[in-house]
Structure formats: C-alpha cells, structure tokens
C-alpha cells in the first residue's frame, strides 16, 4: 500500500462504505433512541496503525467499545466517543442526567450497545457491498485514556505498516450532536483484502 496517498477509487470506496454504514446505523439508532437520527460521515480514510493514537489524542479520555471482527476478515474494531458525547447520549437513552463520577454498570452497557450497533452497521455495510461473511463478538467497554484502550487493538494487528480503516461520523438526535470515531483494524494484511473488494465494488457499481 502507498501510505497516505490514496487513489480516487479507494477514496470513493471508503466514502461509500462509510455512508452505507452510517445509513444502517441511523436506522438502528433511531429505534434505540426513539426518534429521528441522522448520521453524517465527516471523514473516511485509511489511518496507519502507528498514527491511530495521535489521531485520537493519546491521553484524551474516551469512551471506547472494543469488538472483535470474526469471519472472512478477522480483526479488531473500536468505536470511540468523547466523554461529553457519551454523556449526551446517555442522557437521552437513560432519560436522566449523569450524577456519579464513575460510570454505572447500566451506563457502561448503554455505551456498549451503541458501540455494538455502530460497528454492526459498518460490518453489515461490508457484508452488503462485498458479500463477505462477517460476524462480531460481544462488545467490551472501557472509559480511559485513548492510548491505553487502543493498545490491545494495535498489538494484534501485526506489522507496523498495517493500516486501519477510519470513519469519523456525527450523529444528530433531537438537536444533540454526538461525535463518534470508528476504527477497523484487520489482522495481518486484511486491510488490503478488504480494500480490494471495496474498490472493485466502487468501480463496477453495486
């Protein structure tokens, strides 16, 4: 792969992947949040594994959901939210403002569920676009420094030149903006495999 310089076809393929995923996610989240949800993709690109932590901000506090991608392209997925975004989301889902300093079990599982829906939407987008058989593990959640939560994903993705698919999106529900960052880190050279099918799909149409 040629680093950060992406050809137009790959850029288009990633954008299409992001948009289809966001569409799936908006539908699922509007049921969960009981109201109209719109989602827009603000960024869709490849991110070298070595730059992921800098992209998020290494000691910034984040709500992180970790999900293992299983099937044709095994890998790791992370859905990250800033704490203000996570708190706005919780206020809507649980219908009350957060009171305690630490997050309760209920709040953590609500965050896990949203992460699960978002990653599930992107996984479904790949399945739709590429006809690949993919599944995901149950979500695990942590609220901590970005670098600390991301390290297990990085250590499993093999060599340093590997790249992650990075989709940044904003979800709008009742005037509230919730920013999410999604990383998909296929094991070994899975990113190449995935991009090949996405590009072919973008080129020949779907």
């Amino acid at each position, binding site marked *: 792969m040629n680093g950060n310089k992406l050809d137009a076809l790959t850029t288009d393929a990633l954008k299409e992947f992001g948009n289809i995923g966001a569409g799936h996610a908006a539908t699922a989240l509007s049921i969960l949040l009981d109201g109209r949800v719109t989602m827009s993709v603000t960024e869709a690109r490849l991110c070298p594994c070595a730059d992921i*932590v*800098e992209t998020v901000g*290494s*000691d910034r*506090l984040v709500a*992180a959901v*970790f999900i*293992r991608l299983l099937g044709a392209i095994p890998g790791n997925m992370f859905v990250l939210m800033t704490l203000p975004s996570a708190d706005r989301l919780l206020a809507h889902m649980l219908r009350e403002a957060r009171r305690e300093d*630490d997050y309760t079990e209920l709040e953590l599982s609500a965050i896990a569920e949203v992460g699960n829906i978002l990653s599930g939407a992107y996984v479904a987008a790949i399945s739709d676009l590429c006809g690949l058989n993919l599944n995901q*593990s*149950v979500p*695990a*959640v*942590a*609220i*901590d*420094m*970005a*670098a*600390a*939560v*991301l*390290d*297990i994903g*990085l*250590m*499993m993705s093999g060599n*340093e030149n590997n790249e992650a698919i990075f989709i940044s999106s904003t979800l709008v529900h009742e005037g509230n903006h919730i920013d999410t960052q999604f990383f998909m880190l296929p094991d070994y050279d899975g990113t190449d495999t995935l991009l090949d099918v996405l590009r072919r799909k973008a080129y020949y149409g779907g």
Partner: protein
Amino acid sequence: MVDEQQTIRIGIAEGAILTGPGTITTTGLGSCIGLVLFDVIDHVAGMVHVMLPESPSPSPALPQKYADTGIRWLYENVLEAGANRARLKAKYAGGSQMFRGLQTEALRIGDRNIAAVAEHLSQLHIPIVNFDVGGSVGRTIRFELPSRALHIRTARGEERSI
C-alpha cells in the same frame, strides 16, 4: 554551561535515554508497560514503552516494542550513555486489563507483559526498586532526574510516585 532541563516524550513501542536533569514521559499505558532503567549515582536513565512480551524475531524493526528485545535495547543504551552496570536499577508501571469481560486471548496480555518484564530483568540481574502494575486503569508515567522518581497518573486522577 546552562543547566538545561530535557523534556522527552515517547510513544508506544518507542524508547529514549536521558542524561542529566529532565524528564521522560509516556502517556496512556494500558496493557503496555513503561520500564525505566537508571543508574543510582550518575544521572543516566532510559525508558521503553513495550507492548508485547516476546519478539517474533531476534532483531525486529522496533526492538522497543517487545519486552525481551526492548529491555535488551534499553540495557545496552543506558550503558552506552555512561550508566554503571552494577548500579542499574529498575522501576516500571502498566500491564492493565482495560476491557473487562473480553473473551479473546488479548485479555491476558497485561499479565504476560508483567511476567516478561520481571523475568528479563532477573536474567540481567537488575534489581527492581518498585512497580505499579495491573488493574483496569490506564497510566501516564513520568520519570524524573535527578530525583529518580517515577510519577504515575491515572485517568481517574489518582497520582502517586514510586
């Protein structure tokens, strides 16, 4: 000569050497371990931010990424910077399990990193002064010369020095 304070920051799978007054910082240790080797008399110290217990090859592209090759890299480089072999001591922190309830093998990486660091230090006969490991919390650490204190801060705002 002006008494200059050096401020060094290292990222994941990186390492650095400090000679003279200053600090080495690494942020967001999760299951990774930040290890410091220092000379108890001279002002020479170094830090690595290791990610995995074992290198897949004897000379990997990033030796600092693995406990086995990272400790070896740090040991050689602090000696080269003037540390005395007999006066070397170690402090380290990290090795958490950030995600509770994970069903994959990754969940035990923190524990395996802790075990690997202790084992490789013992092989090199380097005494461990103190450590702050395990749990499910991220840590940012800062080692300081000349005090030789390792300051630890967690996401929950706890601070301690070892």
